[in-house]
């Protein structure tokens, strides 16, 4: 029929194109408003570090566009890998249940590598739903840009919408057109996530496994992170635990390879203290303003810092002055928006950390004092 005279005539008629547009709208809704896009996937549990940011961005988008039935009573955790690892939902759920009855499962939508610009962009989507409490977790280096530190990366690119550009990116014409397209056309907005999800539905990754609810010891965690190298990493970790010094900690961190310490050294050498009005500060400010405008009950948690860094007297791995300047900026922004601020920087001992930045999932105990703070806000 397509090759027939009738088909050729149909191709030239405006009604064909109008009907095609109508079909596209229906197709768009059938994908972006249903379980086709938002149903469970293997993709979201990928163990491939290169895919994790995209998978976690997908989970965060699902929290905005396909929220649970009890979303309005829920606790949402925003941040990056510090909170993703540091407050696993099963641990925090149990700690919260001892303090407040009937809280639905915590939604930890931390995204690896997310900076202030990524969170600001994510908030443009999240405010379409409700939540009882949103916890904005932030490290003192999340407002600065340096080698290995981005204010806005993959989450911002995948979730870019709105009438204004992100304060954290310098947007060219192509970026602006993309943002407008994503704003008005859901299938364009979710095209990368849709492709990943459809590919997963056709051929699920057989190696994908959900991160365990309970991490019972460091060996278990190292097996997930380092595979065959887990034994020697565990041995180096135990050497550090027997002899808790910065030197032993560095040996442990270098055991899987030089990438982590190289990144931290470059980041520390390249980062400058954030200034008021700088892109990171403006993105954080916009994030808090948007959550306040949407009527979300928000608390800002400044994440724990590893006390082993006190031995870093030549400031190779961290810069206390930069951290203090960032903290002052975060505190001032929270005060301006009347958001409670929790300073968790000194909450944990060095044994509670996986590395310089990340509390050990479960084992670090970060979920307990965090649950205390969340319960305080939840019940108020």
């Amino acid at each position, binding site marked *: *029929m*397509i090759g*027939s005279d*009738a*088909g050729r*005539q*149909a*191709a030239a*008629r405006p*009604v*064909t*194109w*109008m*009907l*095609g*547009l*109508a*079909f*596209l709208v*229906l*197709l*768009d809704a059938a*994908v972006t408003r249903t379980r086709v896009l938002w149903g469970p996937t293997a993709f979201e549990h990928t163990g491939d*570090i*290169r*895919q*994790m*940011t*995209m998978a976690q961005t997908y989970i965060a988008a699902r929290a905005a566009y396909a929220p649970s039935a009890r979303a309005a009573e829920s606790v949402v955790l925003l941040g*990056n*890998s*510090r909170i993703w690892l540091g407050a696993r939902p099963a641990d925090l759920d149990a700690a919260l249940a001892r303090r407040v009855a009937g809280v639905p499962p915590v939604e930890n939508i931390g995204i*690896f*590598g997310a900076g202030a610009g990524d969170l600001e962009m994510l908030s443009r989507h999240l405010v379409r739903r409700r939540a009882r409490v949103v916890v904005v977790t932030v490290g003192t280096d999340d407002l600065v840009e340096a080698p*290995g*530190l981005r204010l806005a*990366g*993959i989450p911002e*690119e*995948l979730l870019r919408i709105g009438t204004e550009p992100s304060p954290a990116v310098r947007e060219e014409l192509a970026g602006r057109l993309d943002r407008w397209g994503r704003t008005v056309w859901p*299938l*364009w907005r979710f*095209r*990368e*996530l*849709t*492709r*990943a999800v*459809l590919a997963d539905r056709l051929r699920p990754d057989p190696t994908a496994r959900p991160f365990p609810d309970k991490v019972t010891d460091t060996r278990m965690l190292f097996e997930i992170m380092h595979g065959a190298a887990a034994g020697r990493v565990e041995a180096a970790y135990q050497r550090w635990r027997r002899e808790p010094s910065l030197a032993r900690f560095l040996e442990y961190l270098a055991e899987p390879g030089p*990438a*982590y310490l190289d*990144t*931290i050294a470059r*980041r520390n050498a390249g980062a400058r203290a954030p200034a008021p009005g700088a892109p990171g500060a403006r993105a954080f400010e916009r994030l808090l303003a948007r959550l306040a405008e949407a009527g979300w009950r928000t608390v800002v948690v400044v994440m724990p810092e590893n006390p082993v860094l006190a031995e870093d007297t030549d400031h190779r791995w961290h810069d206390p002055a930069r951290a203090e300047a960032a903290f002052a900026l975060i505190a001032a922004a929270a005060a301006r928006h009347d958001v409670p601020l929790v300073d968790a920087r000194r909450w944990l001992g060095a044994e509670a950390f996986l*590395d310089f*930045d*990340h509390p050990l999932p479960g084992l670090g105990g970060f979920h307990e004092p965090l649950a205390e703070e969340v319960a305080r806000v939840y019940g108020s």
Partner: protein
Amino acid sequence: MDPEGLAGPAAIVLRAALYALAVAAIVIWGTGETHVFIYQGF
């Protein structure tokens, strides 16, 4: 009923459906590339 009249609407609907599918496929598979995270200590 005129046979051409039957063929006309059917052709329009089929063409329109193909156009919609083609656009969706191009958007999803043509521009929906995977964003790869380069590990830099999270």
